[in-house]
């Protein structure tokens, strides 16, 4: 599978020094030209976001009956999209926190992009549970706050664990991202030429000057936070899996769901990081820092996570027949051969069969093919969520409760609206914040003797 050892591909261009790297990365937000591609990407994204806002406004006005959620399939697009987004978000934390703990070289230049992706994907994910509460203005009831109704949250419910997990994850991602970006904001403050830039960057850099104690405490805090974020991201996705596994709906009560969802997070998260890297490295001029090594390592990790998904699907198919439960068998056969069978088979092709082309070295060398596999991954994971959420609810225990699910136009509008929100937010971040972790790159360059 690998004839050229990955270690031989340089992880950073040999001609970069810490000065040239700093100029290259910090020059991007300060640039005034070369943003045409950015505007061409921002306008459609903002339009999609506006479309989503319209749909959300309409849903507030008329109630969520304008969505497709209805008897008999009560959970539809909102939960599907929530799980899809949180899986993508988790991939970013895997790259930045988990791979920090194992001290790999290739994480250094891509972790800022991954963490920024996590921020916006987590926000997009968090919108859905609030929206589909039905009375979102009462969302604060999920908090255990002292109230006159003497009410407490339902601690035993996986949906509450989900709320706690998502809340913790968003707060933790923001703090972790901000801690990592603080030294780079100090660089931006020192390099900004216009007064507004200097003031804003200076304010958010909080006066970080790179003193010995500041670096010492930053490294210790960042390391400890990474050590906590790595289990946190696994727990967030496991709690999402528990949302389903705790129920008695056929097809959901499977003990492998928590790690299965973690595999799915790895798969779609890493694929999205790959897509972002492939599209951003040239327009931002980061190609000397995000080299072929990063692409190839991510490609191999994608292949590994696809194999993990295949393993989970094998057990998912084995369990209904081994357990001998008639309803499980009926729901599985419906999945595979019923009206929505194209969803199941599309999922198998996109997540298990097509990614096997990554075994071929020539395919891995082609960025176009990698992009196609990555797009296939996020489509395949969307199909998988549809498969899990909708198709299981179509074949519950009582035949009188079997029905079809038809997504409404507002479901689609909100979904593309969140995609617009993610892209808009990410594009704004590209414009304002350095997209490579400069202080970690300096350490890497020093290790390589290129300081």
């Amino acid at each position, binding site marked *: *599978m*690998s004839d050229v050892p990955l*270690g031989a591909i340089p992880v950073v261009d040999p001609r970069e020094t810490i000065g040239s790297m700093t100029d290259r990365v910090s020059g991007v937000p300060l640039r005034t030209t070369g943003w045409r591609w950015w505007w061409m990407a921002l306008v459609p994204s903002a339009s999609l976001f506006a479309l989503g806002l319209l749909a959300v406004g309409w849903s507030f006005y008329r109630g969520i009956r304008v969505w497709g959620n209805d008897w008999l399939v009560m959970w539809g697009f909102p939960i599907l999209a929530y799980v899809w987004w949180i899986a993508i978000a988790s991939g970013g934390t895997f790259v930045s926190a988990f791979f920090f*703990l*194992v001290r790999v070289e290739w994480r250094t230049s891509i972790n800022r992009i991954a963490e920024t992706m996590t921020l916006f994907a987590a926000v997009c994910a968090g919108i859905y549970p609030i929206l589909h509460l039905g009375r979102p203005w009462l969302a604060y009831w999920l908090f255990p706050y002292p109230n006159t109704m003497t009410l407490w949250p339902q601690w*035993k419910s*996986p949906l509450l664990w989900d709320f706690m997990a998502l809340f913790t994850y968003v707060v933790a991602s923001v703090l972790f991202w901000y801690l990592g970006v603080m030294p780079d904001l100090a660089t931006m403050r020192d390099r900004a030429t216009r007064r507004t830039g200097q003031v804003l960057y200076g304010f958010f850099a909080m006066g970080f000057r790179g003193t010995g104690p500041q670096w010492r405490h930053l490294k210790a805090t960042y390391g400890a936070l990474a050590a906590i974020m790595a*289990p946190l991201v*696994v727990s967030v996705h*496991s709690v999402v899996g*528990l949302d389903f*596994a*705790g*129920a*008695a709906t056929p097809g959901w*009560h*499977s*003990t*492998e*769901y*928590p*790690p299965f969802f973690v595999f799915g997070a790895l798969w779609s998260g890493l694929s999205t990081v790959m897509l972002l890297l492939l599209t951003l490295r040239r327009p931002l001029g980061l190609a000397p820092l995000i080299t072929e090594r990063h692409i190839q390592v991510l490609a*191999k990790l994608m*292949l*590994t996570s696809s*194999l993990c998904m*295949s*393993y989970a699907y*094998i*057990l*998912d198919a*084995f*369990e209904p*027949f*081994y*357990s*001998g*439960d008639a309803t499980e068998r009926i729901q599985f056969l419906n999945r595979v051969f019923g009206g929505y069978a194209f969803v199941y088979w599309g999922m198998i092709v996109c997540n298990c069969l097509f990614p096997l082309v990554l*075994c071929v070295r020539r395919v891995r060398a082609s960025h176009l093919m990698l992009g196609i596999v990555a797009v296939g991954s996020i489509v395949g994971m969307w199909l998988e969520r549809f498969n899990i959420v909708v198709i299981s609810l179509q074949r519950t225990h009582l035949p009188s409760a079997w029905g079809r699910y038809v997504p409404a136009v507002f479901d689609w509008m909100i979904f593309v609206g969140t995609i617009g929100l993610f892209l808009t937010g990410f594009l704004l971040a590209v414009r304002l914040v350095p997209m490579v972790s400069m202080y970690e790159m300096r350490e890497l360059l020093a290790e390589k003797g290129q300081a």
Partner: protein
Amino acid sequence: MMRVAACVLGLAIATYGWRLKSGGFFSGWLAALTLFSAWPLGSMALLLIHSLTGGRWGEVLRPALRVGVCSLPLLLPAVLPLAAGLSPLYAWARPDAAGHLANAFYLNVPFFAARGAVYLAVWFVLGWVVLFGRRIARFAPAGLFLLAVTTTFAAIDATMSLDPHFTSSIYGMIAAAGMALLALSMAVLLTAGRATPDERADLGKLLLALVILWIYLDFMQLLIIWQSDLSTDVPWYLDRSRGVWGGLRIAIVIGHFVLPFFLLLSPRMQRSRAVIVSVAALLVAMEILRSWWTVLPALGRSVDWIDLACMVGLGGLAIGLGSWMARRPVFARQASHV
């Protein structure tokens, strides 16, 4: 020499025990077999993973992991008592109980034997590739995938089917995590004397990570089954929560997770030889206890000296065979190549 003596003694006691109480012998043998088959399989998995990821831990542990893989041939004679004991052990192997089982298409003796043969064939091929292969990284993803699937279904066949109504799709993953942990602990015990403090820190971090992985997987199974409270799944846990098994369960949580977790948290403790060796020994002991906790309650038995004799016997044989084979010139020559 001591190992040979231990295993001969253990085998002798176990054989004598077989003549006396055949029911107890078979379950004790099954527990010992599932535990000590974890050593070669877990070692294979760790070697394959290391060929993909690299890392100092693998360089340090490679000789000990190879010893583990070399103990694989023991599986062939060791499954013979299992084959002889199918009826006393498994309800589905008895014609009177098997009739009304819905999963009889899977749990029947011919299919079980065929699957067992496939698992053994796959493991032997993988073992050969790991020990003699020149470029393991090329086959590692496919090898790990095959290892994962065969280990999962072997665990389902061997221990999950003791209760034919119990289904847990994470069972294979828990078994795999336990196997990796056992293999790593055995390798650490065999190597810890020669490792530097930095290498010990790496090993400590790896042990900590696997301990956390194991408790996560095990707790997920408990939580999901507890939550839904279905009558097909819960008896498995109820049988293992009563009486001495309940106490053992708490002991396993403390010994398998709480103690190693807090001992391995601080970098200073990770570097200490005493801590690493004692944690590894503790984990091996906990895996033994867990093996008994998994197998014996299904047959309504309590821990007996025969179980201990089977463990000692099979364990001694495994260690003896592994280290003897690893010292053979053909294996030693390969070790210097990889």
